[in-house]
């Protein structure tokens, strides 16, 4: 097991992400931060105050549940727990930043794009991820990346966050290893 980010590095990485997003955000279009359940949701929530500090306000915030849009539903089966999408604003004509923890095959992001577009017509959608581990299966690339790392398919990148896991840490592990 290799540690990729410890608590401080994770906070710094989020700060870096927030500054990059703030630098790119348009000033004349409402900005929305949308986290993909579940860890993308937590990361998006943490980015909010950082973005406000960087001068991006007002901000919309929402959470996307992509369970019903996944292409691997039949393999993950009843493990998929539906928690629901919570987007209370009209996404049409907003500049949306999708936030996820790890970018891997790109399939989650594909599902998120479909889910988001069913809600309206955003002016633009950008993708921010904490870790890009490579090995894409779809032509999807991030706009804002916290950490790029080369991995192999037998690896697992675990993003653990205080809110859901009690600790802030990102580790690279072997798929066979029990957590």
């Amino acid at each position, binding site marked *: 097991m290799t540690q990729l980010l410890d608590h401080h590095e994770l906070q710094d990485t989020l700060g870096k992400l927030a500054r990059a997003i703030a630098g790119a955000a348009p000033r004349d279009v409402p900005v929305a931060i949308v986290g993909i359940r579940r860890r993308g949701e937590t990361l998006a929530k943490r980015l909010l105050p950082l973005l406000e500090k960087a001068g991006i306000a007002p901000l919309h915030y929402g959470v996307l549940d992509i369970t019903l849009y996944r292409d691997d539903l039949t393999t993950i089966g009843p493990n998929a727990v*539906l928690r629901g*999408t919570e987007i209370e604003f009209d996404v049409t004509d907003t500049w949306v930043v999708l936030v996820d923890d790890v970018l891997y095959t790109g399939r989650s992001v594909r599902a998120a794009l479909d889910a988001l577009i069913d809600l309206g017509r955003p002016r633009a959608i950008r993708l921010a991820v904490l870790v890009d581990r490579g090995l894409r299966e779809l032509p999807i690339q991030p706009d804002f990346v916290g950490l790029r790392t080369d991995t192999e398919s037998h690896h697992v990148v675990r993003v653990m966050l205080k809110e859901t896991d009690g600790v802030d840490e990102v580790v690279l592990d072997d798929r066979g290893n029990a957590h």
Partner: protein
Amino acid sequence: MTAGTRTKPVWTRKHLLAIAELSREEIVHVLDTAVGFQEVSTRSVKKVPALRGRVVVLMFFEESTRTRMSFELAAQRLSADTVDFVEKMSSTSKGETLLDTARNIEAMGVDIMVLRHPAAGAAQHLAEHVSCCVVNAGDGQHAHPTQALLDLFTIRERKGRVEGLNVAIVGDVAHSRVARSDLRGLQTLGAKVTLVGPPTLAPKSFETMGVRVTSDFERILPEMDVINMLRIQKERMTASGFPSVREYIRLFGMNSDRLKHCKPDVLIMHPGPVNRGIELAADVADGPHSSILRQVTNGLAVRMAVLFLCQQAAAVE
């Protein structure tokens, strides 16, 4: 993609046949899943691709426009294709016809059968003989699980909980699958149930199921958190054991006078369609205590959850 926590799935059933076979955890899982589906119906695009390419056949051997429509919309909002099978059938050839019909339909490649049938146990029988999912949409006087689930959902939504609530079910309990299903579901979630009706329609024998049975509606009103008024089937009113309509209204009808004796936040439910002025006075049915239309709306989300969960369970089988 992070490796999620792979806990043991709560829901592993490909059929939903009766509420009585569900554990507390399973019921709560359906209700929680339905919360996630509520949002879909509020969007401009009221559709998600979860059951895209799946076929749901609605087999209604008994007239029920609302339940059939609710299932049909639920399936369509999950992007499934729906087919209607409508047949009036003779009572003599029920069992034979049902299986024969079902096998023929299955041979066309359907994924989920939603069955409404006048014979108790029909859904169970079907599930034993076909390989696709079977969802019971009401079988005789036996069970109507999605009605119970949507009633539980509505109670939980309005009251914040089900456990510990005093719930009355009023009317022709003996012949009602809604009453039976609601009763079992409420008990599983820890509500205290009182059955109310004339002894011929709410017999004392129900006490063996651990519920209170009474024919004194007025006396129990002040204790109740929820009062579920069953629909009086007018065609049954000529049967022996049934009081006259006037007598029924006087003893068991819910009206604004009786409402004054209830808790200020009492919830009045009805599975619909209402016989206005018989079991429920019009002003109560349309008043702030009534959840009748909300039950219909919630029914859609609950049926989406049921179709989704059964299909998922079948897919990993």
